[in-house]
């Protein structure tokens, strides 16, 4: 039987506010346990929440970025359950009336085509603390630093049909939130976490199969692996005559599998009700329009512009718009060099290769966009040739000079285009290599093309790479052929 996979994602994005969603405590990552938990975060008797306006602004910016409806009224509710790292015994979240209504996100698939994924809604909520199970001799430690950190939970419709699509979707969300600057998008530090709802159904069937929810999926790669495992598990189960049960499963990245956490019967009744400590949130049109004025150009718009105005390929446009720092880097290189395609090639090629080799992020590149742009400008105006350009790039990387021009001057890499000087070098090469000249002369017509490479190499070497290779090639052919 042909099976179709149906996936819906809940992505929790940690918002980059300075302070927590309902208290003034700092949200900085990595502080000593419980040093960033105020009386409110500890859930002490008598404390009350006060909504962080920046978290609201960030949520609205996200809503605008996905062309979502932004309701005038949204309501915070309490999700009640007991857990040691949940200080109040409830999580303040949104349920029936979330801050962001239906919207859509465009994802780019591997073949360069795009697909629209509907967003059901996005809501604001507070994060819980962390339970620490090590080093406490049979007891559990609680760190409430993370407690009250603002999260935007983005819930998709079940529009994704493969692990690859799911991964592309997470990347698209990542790009949007980092473009907006509303999250650092740092998955390793838990700034983006996913719950994945997966089901399978026979191809052509309209109704959805029973879904399993996979928790703890914290990277693009994990999402793909978790889904791949889960899809296979469900198909095997059904094909063996079994039934998928609605349950929550946990992804274990070490074993590369999902395990059952709890079934529907064991699920909590969260007893949601409107939080009486927080009034309904009212957002008027003026507020929403003001937020719209703060929006930067978003990934989808950038991709369109790169492709249609700069003439980049769909693949290049998608890659270069995938993160805001990368796009900004590329655009700066392009502006300085005055050549979009050249800039795209270098950023994607040499720069990315070097960054990946050293495990650096674009923001950590030792070569600035201005430096790379300056280098490409010299390549474009033929001051240097391609080979010298690579050398200049390597030197910039090693910080051996402030600019391409400085390195070109210091190392004498300026391309030699003076015909007289090149001719002199070529005459010398011909004089120094009589054996090869004889072989050339005696070779078949169609072999000579290849053999000329030797002389070009020698001539370039003699010029320490500064001779214009096209010129060398043409002059050599002319002179050698004259000897025939």
């Amino acid at each position: 039987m042909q099976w179709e996979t149906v996936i819906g994602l809940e992505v929790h994005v940690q918002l980059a506010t300075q302070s927590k969603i309902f208290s003034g405590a700092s949200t900085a990552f990595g502080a000593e346990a419980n040093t960033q938990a105020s009386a409110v975060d500890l859930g002490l008797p008598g404390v009350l929440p006060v909504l962080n306006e920046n978290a609201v602004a960030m949520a609205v910016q996200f809503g605008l970025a996905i062309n979502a409806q932004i309701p005038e009224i949204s309501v915070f509710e309490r999700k009640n359950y007991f857990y040691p790292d949940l200080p109040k015994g409830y999580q303040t979240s949104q349920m029936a009336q979330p801050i962001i209504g239906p919207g859509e996100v465009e994802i780019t698939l591997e073949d360069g085509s795009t697909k629209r994924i509907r967003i059901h809604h996005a809501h604001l909520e507070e994060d819980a603390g962390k339970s620490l199970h090590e080093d406490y001799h049979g007891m559990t430690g609680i760190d409430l630093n993370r407690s009250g950190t603002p999260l935007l939970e983005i819930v998709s419709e079940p529009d994704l049909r493969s692990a690859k699509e799911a991964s592309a979707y997470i990347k698209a969300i990542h790009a949007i939130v980092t473009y907006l600057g509303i999250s650092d998008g740092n998955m390793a530090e838990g700034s983006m976490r996913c719950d994945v709802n997966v089901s399978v159904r026979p191809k052509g069937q309209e109704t959805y199969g029973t879904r399993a929810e996979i928790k703890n999926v914290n990277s693009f790669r994990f999402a793909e692996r978790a889904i791949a495992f889960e899809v296979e598990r469900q198909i095997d189960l059904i094909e063996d005559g079994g039934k998928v049960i609605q349950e929550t499963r946990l992804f274990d990245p070490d074993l590369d599998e999902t395990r059952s956490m709890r079934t529907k019967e064991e699920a909590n009744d969260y007893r949601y009700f409107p939080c009486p400590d927080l009034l309904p949130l009212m957002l008027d049109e003026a507020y929403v329009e003001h937020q719209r004025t703060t929006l930067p150009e978003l990934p989808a718009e950038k991709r369109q512009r790169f492709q249609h105005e700069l003439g980049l390929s769909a693949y290049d446009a998608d890659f270069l718009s995938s993160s805001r720092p990368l796009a900004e880097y590329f655009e700066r290189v392009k502006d300085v060099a005055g050549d979009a395609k050249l800039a795209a090639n270098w950023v994607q090629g040499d720069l990315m290769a070097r960054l990946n080799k050293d495990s650096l992020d674009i923001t950590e590149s030792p070569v600035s966009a201005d430096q790379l742009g300056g280098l490409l400008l010299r390549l474009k105006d033929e001051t240097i040739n391609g080979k010298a350009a690579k050398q200049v790039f390597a030197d910039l990387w090693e910080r051996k000079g402030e600019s391409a021009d400085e390195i070109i001057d210091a190392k004498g890499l300026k391309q030699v285009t003076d015909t007289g000087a090149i001719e002199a070098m070529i005459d010398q090469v011909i004089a120094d290599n009589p054996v090869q000249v004889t072989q050339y002369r005696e070779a078949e017509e169609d072999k000579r093309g290849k053999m000329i490479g030797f002389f070009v190499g020698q001539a370039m070497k003699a010029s320490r790479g500064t001779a214009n290779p096209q010129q060398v090639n043409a002059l050599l052919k002319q002179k050698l052929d004259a000897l025939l």
Partner: protein
Amino acid sequence: MHDLTLAELARGLASGDYSSRELTTALLARIDHLDPQLNSFITVTHERALADADAADQARQNGQAGILAGVPIAYKDIYCTEGVRTSCGSKMLDNFAAPYDATVVEKLKLAGTVCLGKTNMDEFAMGSSNENSFYGPVKNPWDTRLVPGGSSGGSAAAVAAGLAPAALGTDTGGSIRQPAAFCGITGLKPTYGRVSRYGMIAYASSLDQGGPMARTAEDCALLLNAMAGHDPRDSTSVSRVVPDYTHDLEKPLTGLKIGLPKEYFGDGLDSGVEQAVREAIKVYESLGAQVIDVSLPHTDLAVPAYYVIAPAEASSNLSRYDGVRFGHRCKDPVDLIDMYKRTRAEGFGDEVKRRILIGTHTLSEGFFDAYYRKAQQVRRLIRQDFLDAFEKVDVLMGPAAPTTAFELGAKADPVQMYLQDIYTIAINLAGIPGISVPAGFAGQHPTERRPVGLQILAPHFAESHLLNVAHVYQQATDWHQRRPELDV
């Protein structure tokens, strides 16, 4: 000195008749002497009181004393007070010293008041008799066989007994007004949102409101001046100018339109209480007021709606008492669930458990619409009843409670106890302000005369008018000057 009102004490302090230290020392001695028979205090803060008094005296010497400087008051033990046990009348918080001051505590401290201590209360403010306290019941100073009312019973008893000229209470369904009535003092529940709830331990957040309990309306006005106002730490506190609540106290009541809700004079009302209330209304007529019969048609739904909404909020508000971070924790738990179960089983009293169970049930999947949502709809109808009535009249009047103070242990059935609040609960659901003022006594025998409270209600944020109406009555009567006889 213990017979004087807050206003009189403030004047005495201002004119140098006595220092705050002298006054505070005298009251502390009176508390030490009399409170063992009343049990109105959970914690007496001797040292802090004297330190506060000295600071107030110093401020006065420096010419920096405000009107309330050096005046001693007590706090219901629901208000967080930094470094002082804040138990909320519960074993759960017996070991909890709050690390911060509630906003109103902070404000009153800033005004120079002296903290005498923390008063007894029904556990987590759940009760109408003060019998639900981990620290034992409070006795009514008029007759120690009687309850003082609840849940702010300790505050009411302390003021009635002259242990403190004033005390703060909180009112979720009548917890200031009913004990004020039972103890013959004046108690004001302000409009919801008028006084910050930050640091006031939550029972039912959408209903809880703190307010003053004192001998007179004037005293309540002085305290409300210091307590009221927007608090950036409480999103439900209202950003609205705080008037001087003493400004309009003396305004004549000529032409005042008083509404008498017929539902507040029906079955279940004690005849002695009714008689006293009707006498009080006659006094108002003699002061130039006009009496109009009105109806609050949804009154009978107030108690049922309250006992859905308040327990629902409470079940969630009280989830934080889990033994993890503060308060009681059971001994040697074998695992997490065991710790939760035994901690909460040991830490909470029966009434608290009952309301947590009710609230958990009404919020459960499948019951939410039938209970919680319906109760919220009823709440809107009740609020509308009041808004409609205030189209026709300026204030509403009636009894604060259907009976006078009853004997300890007399109401073992929780539903009988809940019906104590039939005249007060709707006011919390509507969010309007209400005050209970002493309006005489009721009882068959002269030896069994028990205080009656007249309840006066006004539209949202009309506290100035409410206090004016109460004050003018107190200028014309002397019920508020009567004091219980205590064995000294």
